[in-house]
């Protein structure tokens, strides 16, 4: 019953009539319904000021005939700037001075209804204005909060440092929600879990202990018996304090403040949790803002975690790469030493310095020697390839004539070819321009191609090495290699090694330059070789900005081509 009455008083319109005329006061008393209007009539100046400041009436009706009108006008406007001020005037002429203060005017001859409507219209206007001003204030608040959120999210996107991200989250919450205290349990600030306390005022050790236990309890409740990502123990939990005004202190009454709590997590990744305290109650908007910031920080934290994993993986990869290089270098060393002893012993035996060698002994000694040499070749190939792949191969680029290289390789391999009943012929275009190349490496490439041709070609056939100058537009690269070979515009030296050997099946063509490709093929295994010659050739030519490819048909022979640009290497980079 009482409550209803109280409500009524609040909803009643408070009207103050200021007049020295008794009949006017009585008149207003009769026209305003006592249930809706709370009317008071005063004339004493001091009493008027006291009432105005204490009650803050909705409407003040001032009789213009009152003696202290001038003083009253100013003072009342100062005391209650938002109150509706209506003047009661007898004349139809309005004093210009009054217009400054007036919301409306009543004349003595106005009907009751007119007077009530004038007052009500003004009341409605006032309430509309108040609503407008309130929504403006709300809007300004939202804008401020939005701005704080925007600043925070741009900070989030600017770093991959997890500790910084947590710090930005706390700062963002401070800006948007102006908290009294936040307790952030962070799993990504340091190696171990850390409790970060951001507080307006200093916290006693007992209070910190209580906050620790509270946070751990909150954290445990998130997992509800399930396995937690981290075990947190209050004895070992490290606390970082950031106090804004250390001169004052928070007491345990802090726990009577309004509070909100949120986990900081994304999917299976859990980064921590945050609780925020504020003396004034949080609004639903505050809650949304709080949740938004806690969620927003999770994504960059996840990115930062992934980024860290990538960096760690890269370090691991680099270490593996180094280990691989070291491994190859050590293995080749360990293989070379015994191989040297074997070769040396064979050398001594075959030279006849230890006594006469029979024909069959010579056959087996030669066999042993051939295989020792082959093993030595494999080790060299392995070392070469690992060097090229690690970018450690040194090249000695100098003006080189390809025909000189061809002549050298032809003369070096002619004997071997002859012993197999094969002939090497050359078709060289004369006066070819020099290319910038490492002649020794080109010899290695060509020796490899010609040795392969010798290996895979049956007796009484011919191997042809040709060279010519050609524009890159006219270089015939078949469809198997076209997509993988990019040549620059300009002149190239094209070298071709053509044989009439066993050829390469179409399906194997593309893999001819893959490492150990040959090992797959039992037929070619008989012919020996490591399967590393062609991949090495490919890498060496790529270092010369050139390319290698082949045309072949099974049982009809192969044509291996390589092209090297005529322009200097530096000009092509």
């Amino acid at each position, binding site marked *: 019953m009482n409550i209803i009455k109280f409500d009524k008083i609040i909803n009643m319109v408070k009207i103050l009539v200021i007049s020295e005329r008794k009949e006017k006061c009585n008149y207003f008393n009769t026209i305003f319904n006592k249930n809706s209007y709370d009317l008071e009539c005063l004339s004493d100046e001091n009493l008027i000021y006291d009432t105005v400041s204490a009650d803050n009436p909705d409407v003040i009706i001032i009789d213009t005939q009152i003696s202290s009108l001038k003083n009253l006008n100013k003072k009342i406007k100062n005391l209650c700037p938002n109150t509706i001020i209506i003047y009661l005037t007898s004349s139809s002429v309005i004093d210009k001075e009054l217009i400054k203060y007036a919301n409306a005017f009543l004349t003595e001859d106005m009907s009751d209804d007119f007077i009530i409507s004038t007052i009500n219209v003004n009341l409605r206007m006032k309430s509309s204005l108040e609503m407008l001003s309130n929504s403006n204030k709300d809007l300004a608040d939202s804008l401020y909060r939005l701005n704080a959120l925007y600043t925070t999210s741009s900070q989030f996107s600017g770093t991959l440092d997890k500790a910084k991200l947590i710090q930005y989250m706390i700062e963002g919450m401070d800006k948007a929600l102006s908290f009294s205290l936040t307790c952030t349990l962070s799993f990504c600030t340091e190696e171990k879990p850390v409790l970060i306390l951001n507080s307006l005022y200093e916290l006693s050790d007992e209070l910190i202990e209580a906050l620790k236990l509270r946070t751990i309890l909150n954290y445990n409740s998130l997992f509800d018996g399930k396995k937690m990502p981290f075990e947190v123990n209050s004895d070992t939990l490290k606390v970082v304090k950031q106090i804004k005004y250390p001169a004052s202190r928070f007491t345990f009454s802090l726990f009577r403040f309004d509070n909100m709590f949120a986990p900081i997590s994304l999917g299976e990744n859990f980064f921590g949790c945050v609780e925020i305290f504020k003396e004034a109650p949080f609004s639903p908007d505050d809650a949304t803002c709080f949740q938004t910031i806690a969620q927003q920080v999770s994504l960059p934290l996840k990115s930062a975690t992934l980024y860290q994993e990538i960096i760690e993986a890269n370090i691991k990869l680099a270490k593996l790469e180094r280990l691989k290089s070291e491994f190859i270098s050590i293995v080749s060393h360990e293989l070379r030493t015994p191989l040297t*002893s074997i070769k040396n012993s064979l050398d001594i035996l075959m030279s006849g310095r230890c006594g006469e060698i029979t024909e069959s002994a010579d056959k087996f000694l030669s066999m042993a020697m051939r295989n020792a040499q082959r093993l030595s070749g494999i080790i060299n190939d392995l070392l070469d390839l690992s060097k090229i792949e690690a970018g450690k191969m040194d090249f000695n680029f100098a003006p080189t004539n390809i025909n000189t290289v061809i002549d050298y390789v032809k003369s070096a391999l002619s004997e071997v070819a002859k012993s197999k009943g094969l002939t090497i012929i050359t078709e060289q275009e004369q006066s070819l321009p020099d290319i910038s190349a490492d002649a020794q490496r080109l010899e290695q490439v060509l020796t490899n191609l010609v040795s392969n041709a010798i290996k895979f070609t049956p007796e009484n056939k011919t191997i042809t090495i040709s060279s010519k100058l050609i524009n890159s537009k006219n270089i015939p690269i078949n469809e198997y290699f076209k997509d993988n070979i990019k040549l620059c515009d300009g002149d190239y030296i094209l070298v071709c090694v053509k044989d009439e050997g066993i050829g390469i099946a179409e399906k194997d063509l593309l893999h001819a330059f893959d490492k150990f490709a040959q090992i797959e093929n039992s037929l070619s295994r008989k012919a020996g070789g490591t399967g590393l010659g062609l991949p090495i050739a490919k890498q060496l030519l790529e270092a010369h900005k050139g390319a290698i490819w082949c045309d072949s048909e099974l049982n009809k022979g192969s044509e291996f081509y390589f092209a090297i640009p005529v322009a200097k290497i530096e000009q092509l980079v």
Partner: protein
Amino acid sequence: MKKILIVDDEQDIVESLKFVLEAADFTCYCAYNGEDGLRLAKEIIPDLIILDVMMPKINGYKISRLLKYDAKYKNIPILMVTARSQEEDKLIGEETGADEYITKPFELDEVVKKVEQYLK
């Protein structure tokens, strides 16, 4: 007869080098680790040293440096023999004053030829 000191921890390699060098009329002294090699070098003052790089106790680079920076021994030609063929290793070899750098596996006749060249 010219004296040649062979220092290598691989006994088999020392053996084969000794065999061909003696056949070419050189007197050979052998050491199987760096420490013995250095001591022997100072003791017999050979006309040439064939020196392996990777050895226990004192490695070939160090022996070469110690000898080449000593006026008494600096004129003894040193042939460095190693299984390592990395370019930077070669550079270290040159810095330590070795006269020649031979990579394993080597041809025995090639070594004999090199030795004869230095001792002409």
